[in-house]
């Protein structure tokens, strides 16, 4: 499973990257995960299964979705704030399953 995280500068979402990776390791899941800045989203077309967007960029979700053509959604604010890797991972899985 390949998860892309996106926020304005790719900084605040990078906090969550580590936590999601840890959560996946605990479950014995193989994942690829990376945080990028919104400005670089065009370079990510075709590389990912799902994209989670920082809640501060929820206004950009539709634009990101039209470019990536994969499930894209903004992360629930509290999950994002606490960098809750488990919840974020569940969310990513639920998005892929639709």
């Amino acid at each position, binding site marked *: 499973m390949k998860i892309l995280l996106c926020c*304005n500068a790719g900084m605040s979402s990078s906090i969550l990257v580590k936590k999601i990776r840890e959560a996946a390791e605990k479950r014995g899941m193989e994942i690829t995960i990376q945080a990028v800045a*919104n*400005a670089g989203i065009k370079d990510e077309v075709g590389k990912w299964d799902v994209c989670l967007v920082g809640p501060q960029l929820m*206004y950009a979700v*539709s*634009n990101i979705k039209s470019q990536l053509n994969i499930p894209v959604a903004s992360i629930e604010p*509290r999950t*994002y*704030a606490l*960098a809750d890797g488990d919840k974020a991972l569940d969310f990513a899985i639920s998005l892929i399953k639709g």
Partner: protein
Amino acid sequence: MNKIQAWLQKWLMPIATALENQRHLQAIKDGIVGIVPIIIIGSFCLVPTGIGNLIGGGVQEWVNAHNSIITFPTYFTTNIMSLYAVLYIANSLAKSYDIKNVLVGASAILVHLLLSVTITEEGAWTVSYLGAEGLFVAMISAILAVEVMRLCSKHNLTIKMPDSVPPMVADSFSILIPLVIDVVIATAIATLCQNLGGTTFPQVIMNILAPAISSMDSLPAVMIVIFITQLLWVFGLHGAAITSSVWAPFAIANATANAAAVAAGADPTHVFTFGFYYGFLQVSGSGMTLGLVIMMMLSKAKSLKTIGRVGIIPSLFGVNEPIIFGAPIIMNPFLMIPFVFGPVIVAAIDYLAMASGLVGLPLWEAPGFLPPGFQAFLLTLDWKAAVLAIFNVVLMTIFYYPFFKMMEADELKKEAANS
């Protein structure tokens, strides 16, 4: 409260989304913000001069004696800044249109040079308009080149090669017609400006934009920008990311103009630069929340303590999303008041402190995402500026305190009821 939220969501979200989808604005913002590292490198080369002036004596003499070597790179960074900007803006706009031609950036550079550089009778280049004054021309050049390319391919005005031709070769043929159009338009504009107006295109643009540039670097403008930024955050939207598509070009042009003044041995004149915004008005993140984070860490309320602990380290480096979404500040009836109005007061104090000469003006650009005071010092080489940045955080802590106490009492009551 929910009604207000629903109403604002209904009106704010579409505006934010529309701005986000306006590809020219986004390309300009991404392009201009993308070249900040180049400005920072140019600024580094001016730092020895600044330190020499600060210390004086032998250090100053040594720096002055070697100045031509130390400041050599500034001629190719800050002084021709717009040349980097035009490439970056064109690439990012081309990307948004899915234009894959690798030469589109080069065509934008060509347009920009035609519009901005004049040639003396001896055949030498005059490049003075490639610096700060050229940034706005760079936006025009980049948009012109990319749009010409796009319209040409839309209307099949390109030389198409068979599919078996390698893409690099095909690209160089398909850009030929757009390039001819670019060159004709840009040369016509440059010649018209020179022959009819006796001036240059960048000067014409600067004359048109002069009122906007000077009104952007003013106390009311800074207060309005910070107010809107903070207000957007209250609704969970990234304030700076949205508002900066309007102010970042001005703020970066101002920083470049300041650096050019310093390089020429003059005093900087602009207060509202990119660094002023981040190094003073966004210390420890939007809303300057460091004091709030510490109060949360020390709180008896468990939920607040947890968020405070998660948020403290990122906060020290200017990242406070954990606090904004965790406290949360979003739609929080207690915290939104100091969060929105506090920074407006801070902005007024800082602007006046600089405009009055009490604290040094930003000399150039400096790296951000540093603990409070560091960027402010690097920007100004004035210890009073570092004190001012820390003072901002302390003042904000005082603003947050009563509201935090109310929120904490509320939170403790909830926790007691749940246990």
